[in-house]
């Protein structure tokens, strides 16, 4: 299989980037998309050129470290899939594939396809935890949690922190990411004690980092590898409102 990659190259945050063209041969349909890039990089090394910098770690769709725009779509042509799960069988022989980094003001480019998503960590830092120290927990079955509640918390908790939602959003909003975490913790009995503070602190930090506001276009939900539902954002807004009345 033969394709032509057009890949964004940029030395660092301050330099100007551009799309470079790389025809690649000898690929197979079984290869993952990242393995095709590996293949290209090996060719570049042999030619004495610097490799393309892109991110990945687990390569099984769970760590959230991979993520690029492929032909204008976050994580490539399929819904609900990470970049590392994409295989070359999704392309045709002879295709041209344009590869670009996440584009969002709050995710500055570090090099080529690598961006800085540490803003997500700082949102977490503001309140995505339950303040109880190691060694202070009550017996696990002491507080029964209805299966439906626990399942819903799990749906929200599944977010892998990849940033596709932000990258694909025309407002660069981090609402899907932030709401998923808030709803995970706020819906569980253990998370209730700090629910109001959490929703306020995390949404405040979201703005502080320069992420835009959500206008409910729903683009994020489709690209989200974990299928985190848009309803989470509405729920977060409701929780925010509730905190105005009941928070202190």
């Amino acid at each position: 299989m033969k394709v032509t990659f057009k890949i964004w190259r940029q030395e660092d945050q301050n330099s100007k980037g551009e799309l470079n063209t790389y025809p690649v041969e000898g690929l197979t349909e079984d290869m993952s998309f990242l393995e095709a890039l590996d293949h290209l990089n090996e060719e570049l090394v042999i030619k004495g050129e610097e490799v393309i910098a892109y991110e990945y770690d687990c390569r099984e769709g769970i760590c959230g470290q991979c993520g690029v725009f492929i032909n204008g779509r976050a994580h490539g042509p399929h819904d609900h899939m990470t970049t590392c799960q994409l295989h070359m069988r999704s392309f045709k022989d002879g295709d041209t594939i344009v590869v670009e980094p996440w584009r969002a003001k709050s995710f500055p480019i570090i090099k080529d396809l690598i961006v800085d998503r540490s803003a997500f960590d700082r949102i977490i830092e503001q309140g995505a935890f339950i303040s109880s120290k190691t060694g202070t927990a009550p017996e696990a079955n002491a507080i029964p949690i209805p299966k439906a509640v626990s399942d819903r918390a799990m749906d929200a908790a599944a977010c892998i922190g990849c940033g596709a939602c932000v990258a694909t959003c025309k407002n660069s909003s981090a609402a899907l990411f932030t709401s998923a975490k808030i709803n995970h913790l706020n819906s569980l009995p253990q998370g209730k004690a700090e629910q109001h503070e959490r929703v306020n602190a995390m949404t405040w930090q979201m703005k502080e980092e320069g992420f835009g506001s959500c206008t409910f276009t729903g683009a994020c939900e489709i690209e989200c590898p974990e299928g985190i539902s848009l309803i989470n954002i509405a729920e977060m807004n409701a929780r925010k409102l509730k905190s105005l009345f009941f928070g202190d």
Partner: protein
Amino acid sequence: MIVVGSGLSGAGAASTLGELGYDVHCFCYQDSARRAHSVAAQGGINAAKNYQHDGDSVYRMFYDTLKGGDFRSREANTYRLAELSAPLIDHYVQQGVPFAREYGGTLVNRSFGGVQVQRTFYARGQTGQQLLLATYSQLYKMVKAKKVTMHARSEMMDLVTIDGKAKGIIVRNLVTGQLERYAADAVVLATGGYSRVFRLSTLAIGCNGSAIWKAHKKGAYFAGPSFTQIHPTALPQSSEAQSKLTLMSESLRNDGRIWVPKAKNDTRIANDIPDEERDYYLERRYPSFGNLAPRDIASRAAKERIDAGYGVGRLKNAVYLDFKHAIERLGLETIQDRYGNLFKMYKKITGIDAYKQPMMISPAAHFSMGGLWVDYELMTTVKGLYAIGECNYSDHGANRLGANSLLQASVDGYFILPNTINNYLVGEMKNEHPDTAHSAFDDAEKETKAFIDKILAIDGTKTVDHFHRELGKVMWQECAMSRNEEGLKKAIAQIEQIKTAFWSDVKVTGGDGLNTELEKAYRLADFIELGILMCTDALQRNESCGAHFREEFQSYEGEAVRVDEDYSYVSAWEYNKGDFKLHKEELEFEFVEPTVRSYK
């Protein structure tokens, strides 16, 4: 305090040490602590809660773990693991882990390989992710409290010792390439497993053995390096270009049945092969454990069938894992509820719907029981250097039971280390804090710089991946599921050749700034040396135990034969200028009589 690693063990330790009031610096090579490879664990975590009233107890769990490890771990460690398992579940529930629940609101359990009770807790097929995210949250709680400083995209390159004690590390900033110095009263390594030595494994691409290898070279003994677990249920390799093997959780073996056709080279599609023409070989060989036989046994049995020519799939390197009967028995919905996301993942990768056709699975390198030798307090042979989680050799002996290692990583980090480390610090903190201006830091930094410059200067003709593939092939062939003297000797010679070739012919382009190719290269350089030690270890152990199967030591039925008279010890290797010196920690069994490990 320095903690290298932000997986369950590292982040658990860093946050708890922070709670205790220490000033902690935590490091990881990924862009965020949340990506440590603990995130990828699917199946679950064990605890002796006996919620299912099936006769579970701390003693039973202790016994299962010791037996699962084929009596090559310390009784006391293993007992402690079982003892701390129940409070750990309490701890995670309190942190907001959405474990699976019954309709009545209590926690659900399932069973896992090598065990006949239900003691595994899980959160869909994403247990590791949920535990890690909870731990990451606790870590960031302490970052907010200004007790922990998190350094992401930071790779430990060397350990700094002063007067034989661990006092700091040299770190490479992966964005700028700068070398940085950090000093501390104690250093904790929590850097995970080294199965990427095989190249193809279920580990993340960045997983490495470098941190513990550098510590080994600075005096920390390396224990049981050849004890590596090959997981029976991964997706088979489909091409030479493949970079990793995806695990299909072992929990699938709860309901899935493993088989190959009874006839060689059967070309029919799986669904066309009638039941009487299928060989459910695990059920045949191990009637009482059947498809739930421990991993080492299940992997070896698969290898035996594949090598004998019964393998399936395009490359004949796989076996079937079939849910037909389970779906008939339990209904599609139940199977979807239990394994939905695994079936989805299978479809994404292979394009096949496993509700309709059996999955194809194959053994893959997965877990390292071996690691830095630690005492009961988790301290290595270098004073002030601790190793926790998968990177140490502690509780699993020669084979780890499924769902026991999220447990081990967690209790090491949250419960054990934050208690034991004080015994050392009590004396140590009376002394002056170490200073990064000390000449030991100069030396270590110079060494690291020379190491990197040397790699960049070679400018040979072959890529890093080329050498990694070569190493992987040798290791997989000779030092994986089945080993023999001749093969191991040959492997050592071959790896020596790979080492020479690497250091004269590797080509790494780009400079010493952000350079992913350079990262791969220096990690591989360490893997090559580690590979030699693994083969050396496998060669000295003239017995079969757990994951270590020496072909010369098997019964006529092909089962492992342990030689307790001579090998009831933990091998702990000392690095000695490129050579390795063996030390033996004799294992004493006070409470359990080692028996033949039978799952028949």
